[in-house]
């Protein structure tokens, strides 16, 4: 059953970590498909394996067994350079702690993925300014991250995620360090990107209100998916 809408196809995926005390299983036999244009929230208590799952989705880590296919590529078989290329071209990351380079100004930060994509300098800066402008930050192009607010920093991070024109945005607790009002602004941006640009968004959160922005909810408990469906369930189980 090949579906051209498949962006992510995961089948029978297992992940375990090898520790001194022996192998510790983290994810058990996951199977999941995410189509292009979906907006998925992932919830679950700490230790449920959702971060590990995000790392695998983001090609930062590879599964122990099972298959993960991203845009037709079997991630488990790729070498580190190919994984880096995939992260660069297909995925945009947004982290809880923003993760901007503190010594580089905003346009340099946003242009960084393009640098690793070997885009020429003029085009790099032009695109960086374009996305900063789209985030309403055009007057801060030369500022350092430490000179702007947290909400602004997260918007810079989103601009950086968008710079290489990805199919998938992975957001790991993107509002975790922000106040309610700013959180809403950031979530509105994700909603808009998903609705208008058709970008697939997968976000991890523990706040039901934030999960409500998504259209699909996947809940993890003990390394297994216990819910995959409507976001109305976000409040129920959390309560």
């Amino acid at each position: 059953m090949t579906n051209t809408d498949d962006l992510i196809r995961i089948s029978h995926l297992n992940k375990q970590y090898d520790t001194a005390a022996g192998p510790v299983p983290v994810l058990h036999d996951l199977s999941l498909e995410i189509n292009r244009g979906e907006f998925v929230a992932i919830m679950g208590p700490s230790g449920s394996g959702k971060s590990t799952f995000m790392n695998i989705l983001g090609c930062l880590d590879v599964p122990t067994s099972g298959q993960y296919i991203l845009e037709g590529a079997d991630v488990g078989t790729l070498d580190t350079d190919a994984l880096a290329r995939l992260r660069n071209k297909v995925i945009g990351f947004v982290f809880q702690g923003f993760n901007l380079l503190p010594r580089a100004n905003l346009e340099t930060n946003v242009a960084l993925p393009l640098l690793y994509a070997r885009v020429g300098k003029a085009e790099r800066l032009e695109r960086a300014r374009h996305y900063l402008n789209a985030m309403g930050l055009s007057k801060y192009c030369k500022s350092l991250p430490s000179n702007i607010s947290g909400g602004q920093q997260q918007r810079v991070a989103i601009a950086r995620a968008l710079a290489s024109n990805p199919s998938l945005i992975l957001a790991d607790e993107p509002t975790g360090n922000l106040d309610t009002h700013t959180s809403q602004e950031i979530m509105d941006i994700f909603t808009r990107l998903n609705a208008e640009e058709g970008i697939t968004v997968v976000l991890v959160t523990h706040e039901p209100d934030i999960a409500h922005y998504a259209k699909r909810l996947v809940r993890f408990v003990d390394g297994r998916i216990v819910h995959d469906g409507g976001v109305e369930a976000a409040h129920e189980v959390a309560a």
Partner: protein
Amino acid sequence: MIGVMLGEAWHAMGANRMRTFLTMLGMVIGVGAVIAMMAIGQGVKDSVNESIASMGSNLFIVLSGSASTGGMRMGGGVAPTLTLADAQAIAELPSVRASAPVASGSAQVVYGSNNWSTSISGVTPDYLEVAGWQIADGYWISDSDTRSATRVAVLGQTVVDNLFGDEDPLGKIIRIKQSPFTVIGVLQAKGQSLDGRDQDDTILMPIRTAQRQVLGQQFRTSVRMTMAQAISAEAMPQAEKDMNDLLRQRHRIRQGADDDFNVRNMTALAKTAAQTAELMSMLLGAIASISLIVGGVGIMNIMLVSVTERTREIGIRMAIGARRRDILAQFLLEAISISIAGCLVGVALGVSAALLVNHLTDTPVVITLSSILLGFAVATAVGVFFGYYPAHQAAKLRPIEALRFN
């Protein structure tokens, strides 16, 4: 890409100026020491070569044998076994271009109220060229001076300075062992010989004059030594053999008996001196190179610290698409930048140090472009060599672990 990375390296270096400066200091001192030592070594080498050139080329010295007086054996050149006729016979050998017999001793020389003790050499006209002298002023000893044993003298620069001061010595009469001598010429200064003797502290005069008037009984008919010049550098071994055979025949020395003369190859001696200077120069360079290596280890140390401090940054870069070789290149370039920046300052320091040494101690120094280029090449190599390991450590970090690092 390189431009951006250089910019980033510059930023990273600027972010912790004190630390960057201290790290660079190792390279500065290392490169400075290498440049200064090479300059001094090259200077010494050049001055040795100059002394060798002043000695005359393809040169032999034939010394008369040692004498034995009442069981006490004297050194070479003491027994009066070598004669003027021997010198002439040597000059006629096909492998020898010219020979110049020398009868030498020392005497007190007086001019007006000044007196000076110096070495006196009785020579023939050929001596000037064989020994590599040049006339600065006046005339050289002529054949007729030699034949008729006239009382004329050609003075070395040191003797002129001590007897005459600022006065013009030409045509003046000096007294050597009570006999009056007319000064006909002054020699061009040569400076020190290889063994540190002042070659300009000498008086030259016709050989028969010296034998009869100055040196006394012992050398009345004989000479202390004969200088001989081979026709070419290639003919040196042949000339040495020819002279040995000739003198053994002339002195009627039987097979198996000891020679009563001694042929010394001065060029071989000079070569040894040049090799010694070369060796010293290399040794200085080698010692200085050790500080370069120490500087390199300093860079490696700081780069390792820097990689640890910037683990999170490395994680971010990897997450957004940096490949391992991008990270490797970034840290390698940073190490090379530090080492080349250190090298630039080091070259300036080394050149100033060499000039200062030259100024303070009169040690000759020669700063060559090649030594500066070598300094840069070595600094780059040190940057690559000692930067590679930390850069490799950075590149092999796993992105999730690097991102998790605080």
